[in-house]
């Protein structure tokens, strides 16, 4: 973990309520896809955790949805604004278990961390499929970007306005894969759990106090004992999760 100041390079709306923020700063502590940063926001007490979408050449990319007070203020912040970030938080995804043809499963604003994961997997010579679920076509994010990285992308939308009609689980039913990596809302996880054919990893969300394991604010029970989502997670392996 590192505490340092980042400067906003850009902060633009890319879909309904969804923003992309690029920041310049010290990303040396960001070692794995699936980690997050914890951002100090002027006027609020607690930092706000946001998953890392990408981090390279000194530029950190975050894609976040405006869901409350914190993200509302973030969405207002313009170029040049300086923010205190804690970086290198969380365990992140373990790509060593992916096998040769892993599947990424993303739901809505859970998709961003899969971008950096996809990059890493492809750089490791794996052939990646990505199944992405959204409510409707206007909410689709990162599909093109994942294709551009070389992933086979499958889309599902609840209203059928793009890809197959239904949930992301409807898009993966017939796919072959060696392992899976999922990020999205809990209901999606429960659905994936029913249909997934292999081992895999899930990235969980929880309200956090500190984000680095001190306050026990985000604990959960697993088959291997209590874990802190912020430090022992946010990524847990399918086998250890108690649903």
């Amino acid at each position, binding site marked *: 973990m590192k505490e340092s100041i980042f400067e906003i390079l850009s902060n633009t709306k890319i879909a309904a309520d969804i923003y992309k923020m690029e920041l310049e700063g010290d990303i040396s502590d960001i070692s794995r896809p699936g980690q997050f940063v914890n951002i100090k926001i002027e006027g*609020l007490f*607690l930092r706000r955790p946001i998953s890392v979408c990408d981090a390279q050449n000194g530029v950190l990319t975050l894609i976040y949805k405006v869901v409350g007070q914190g993200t509302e203020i973030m969405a207002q912040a313009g170029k040049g604004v300086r923010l205190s970030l804690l970086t290198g938080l969380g365990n992140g995804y373990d790509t060593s278990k992916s096998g040769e043809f892993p599947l990424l499963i993303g739901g809505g604003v859970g998709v961003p961390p899969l971008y950096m994961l996809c990059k890493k997997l492809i750089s490791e010579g794996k052939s990646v499929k990505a199944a992405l679920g959204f409510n409707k076509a206007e909410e689709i994010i990162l599909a093109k970007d994942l294709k551009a990285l070389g992933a086979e992308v499958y889309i599902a939308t609840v209203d059928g306005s793009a890809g197959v009609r239904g949930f992301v689980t409807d898009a993966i039913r017939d796919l072959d894969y060696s392992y899976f990596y999922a990020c999205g809302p809990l209901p999606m996880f429960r659905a994936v759990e029913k249909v997934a054919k292999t081992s895999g990893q899930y990235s969980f969300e929880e*309200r956090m*106090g500190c984000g680095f394991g*001190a306050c026990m604010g985000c604990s959960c029970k697993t088959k291997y004992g209590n874990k802190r989502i912020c430090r022992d997670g946010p990524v847990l392996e399918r086998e250890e999760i108690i649903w």
Partner: protein
Amino acid sequence: MVSTKVNLCGLSLDNPIIPASGTFGFGYEFAELYDINILGTFSFKGTTKEPRFGNPTPRIAECPSGMLNAVGLQNPGVDKVISQELPRLKKCFDKPVMANVSGFSVDDYAYTCERLDKENQVGWLEVNISCPNVHGGGMSFGTDPKAAAAVTRAVKKVTKKPVIIKLSPNVSDIVSIAIACKEAGADGLSLINTLLGMRIDKKTRKPVLANTTGGYSGPAVFPVALRMVYQVYEAVKIPIVGMGGISSAEDVIEMMLAGATAVEVGAANLVDPYASKKIINDLPRVMEKYKINNLSEIIGGAH
């Protein structure tokens, strides 16, 4: 050259800065960030007789100038604390640590304190009779002078180490509790624990916390904490560990002027993991600003 040394119940502290229980784990997360031997000491995670998972999540909520927590005393239990946490702590902390203890009965408190009394690493026992987030126990001992005295007496019987009773602010008259603890033999008092608070999610129309209510900490509670430390200092002449929203060296000075011998830093550690270190580094400069050579001389200076 200014001196930041203070004496807390017979043990000397290089400085009065003590990270508060529940915000500093068992120290080693922070030891990865800086040498925690610069601290006066720290109060480790509230420990109970049996292991506890604590409350369901969400356990945390944002507030104006502060936060709510309803962790509910998650801890591995006194056996594991002694067999695993303390040995691990030894590797990164050379000073006596403050052992924070909670319970659900007088016997619980006595049992856990007796176990920890035998540990050389433990310098003080901080007995938490004021946790607002557990039911049937915790705060109930801290809101009744008789119950507070009973816990204090039971703990004093089983230990030679200084016993510091941690008081609840959620009372009509904290002075009466303080006097009861002192008369029952408490060597010191620490205050305040968190203020009982609540937030509601306007979209779901349900409480934000799974536990409905939680403990309010952060700068927002500082004026209440300062008032209570000031009142208790007037009434009892045993050392007070002042806490509640302290986030700067300026706050430390103000709390000591109210009557605190040492201070605990809580929520600030969660927002800035380096907060306690920064406060220690700032102290000499701020002491000079207020023309203080010897920090221990200002204790109760506002009376």
